[in-house]
């Protein structure tokens, strides 16, 4: 398969307001494969580019449940099944004493799932990405806001898309080589 030499078209904006508005207009114009880049989280921006399903909470929930079960069952198996010891006459399965570690393991697994789940869903680590080929993109981590239309969008057309993005009054427009 021949790859498109152009990865997408990147438009640069000055303010979060301009980016949110541009993202909304672009999405409304029928572009579905778009992305927005900003130096800090902007509330509602992800929704404007058509992102609605955030699976991180589910991953964390599963992690927490697995952690809690692991914690409790580990203690149960070790203390009551594999090697029961009589300590101060307490029953081998002394569940109230197992709660603390069950709790800690729940938090541990849920927290690890939150971090690594977020990174995995974001496809990180990914040290190389075509968008870094645009020199001005270095400002995306400082004070500029970018909107990208990917070249594999159904509606993408090199000239028309560029024209459309120009109508949004960006500060600059660049083609992203893939």
């Amino acid at each position, binding site marked *: 398969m021949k790859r498109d030499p152009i990865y997408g078209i990147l438009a640069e904006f000055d303010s*979060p*307001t301009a980016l949110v508005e541009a*993202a909304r207009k672009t999405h409304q114009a029928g572009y579905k494969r778009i*992305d*927005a*880049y*900003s*130096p*800090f*989280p*902007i*509330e509602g*921006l*992800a929704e*404007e*580019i058509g*992102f609605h399903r*955030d699976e*991180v*909470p589910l991953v*964390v929930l599963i992690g927490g449940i697995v952690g809690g079960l692991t914690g409790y069952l*580990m*203690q149960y198996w*070790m*203390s009551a099944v*594999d*090697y029961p010891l009589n*300590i*101060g006459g*307490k029953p081998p399965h002394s569940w109230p*004493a*197992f709660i*603390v*570690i069950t*709790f*800690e*393991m729940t*938090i*541990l697994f*849920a*927290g690890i799932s*939150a*971090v690594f*789940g*977020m*990174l995995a869903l*974001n496809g*990180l*680590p*990914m*040290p*190389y990405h075509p*968008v870094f080929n645009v020199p001005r*993109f*270095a*400002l*995306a*981590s*400082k*004070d500029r806001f970018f909107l990208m239309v990917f070249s594999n969008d159904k509606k993408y057309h090199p000239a028309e898309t560029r024209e459309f993005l120009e109508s949004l009054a960006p500060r600059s427009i660049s083609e992203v080589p893939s």
Partner: protein
Amino acid sequence: MDEQYKITVNAQETPVIEPGYTFGTVTEKISAIVLTRPASNGWFVGFGLAFMLTMMMLYAIGYLFVKGIGIWGVTIPIGWGFAIVNFVWWIGIGHAGTLISAILLLLRQSWRNSINRFAEAMTLFAVACAGIFPAIHVGRPWLAYWLFPYPSTMGVWPQFRSPLIWDVFAVSTYATISALFWFIGLIPDLATLRDRAAHPATRMIYGMLSMGWRGSARHWHRYETAYLLLAGLATPLVLSVHTVVSFDFAVGIVPGWHTTIFPPYFVAGAIYSGFAMVLMLAIPIRKIYGLEDFITERHLQNSAKVMLATGLIVAYGYGIEAFMGWYSGDRYDAFTLWNRLHGPYAVPYWSLLACNIFIPQVLWIRKLRTSPVALFFISGVILVGMWLERFIIVVVSLSRDFLTSSWGMYYPTRWDWMTYIGTIGMFLAAMFLFVRLLPMISIFEMRTLLPEAEVKE
């Protein structure tokens, strides 16, 4: 005008960031400390001293490994000496970092954004210092891994009904979650450093650490969800950690330990000492690196108020201990109180009351709450007081329990002091490296506080 500014102007309070900053200038100012500002002679002297203290600690620990814990002042009946005192003290200091980063995030206290990063770093380094003590206190430290449930050839498992094993899980979970929380907070700022670094090697290192973060809206969305959930998880965690530490004592039957007030009073004490450490670090750092615009009077005031509140909870804890000494009718509990007030350790006990209860009451005076110099010294007093509190709990309770025939005294040796002061050096050395190598204020969270960050419809 931004909502936040309106609110702060109305309340006639100092804002969280001084006006006049933009995304660009905030970024410049914080990243320049790491990327372009040359290390000053003062930094080298400070780091050098801290490093030497770290070496002293390693020497003391090395000698301990050769000789065994007989070089310390611990004996029977006082088997828990400095090691446990310092462990509890350091863990407590760490708690303020998590409180600032997690609990204040959930409470939408935006002033936290300029102090959370280095408070989290403080947590990590404090937990690292804390972790040393139980590990070297076990007698045969090369077997410290026996604390963890691993399939051993002996076929035996840890004793899960003991608070000491709960502590292993609580502290190791706390260390892991604190490190992860700190790291994901750093990712976007590492990307900023990557994009601003001039040297290719610097760019490469920060680039790898930032994991290729590019600020995509989808990524931010998941990032914020994960961050918020992590804060929600860290909040009960931090409360549980010092609760479990207090169980190490409260579950035992020793007079002066066996009390139900311990968990809340330990947690409050932890936050008390932690905020004192935050101030002791923040006050010189903001002065030296010219960050008074970001760490303003408001931050100092708020931290002072937190100290005042938690200090009163701690005072309540002491009050209840004293009250129960009388009200329980238990002669051993009553004796514990008498022994604290008049026994051989009366001087540390009265100093503790002075440091933790009486002196910090000056924080009611607004003028002192906003004076960096005064706050620096009051924080020092509180840190000493909180250390004394743990000393009283550990040493004084053990020194005189039920039988007069088993009474004893505890005299710390030079190795105890060298290890303790050495960990302070290690903590400071790590802080010195941190302020030079990583952005000590969260740049992206500072951007969100600026008026221009608001999306206007």
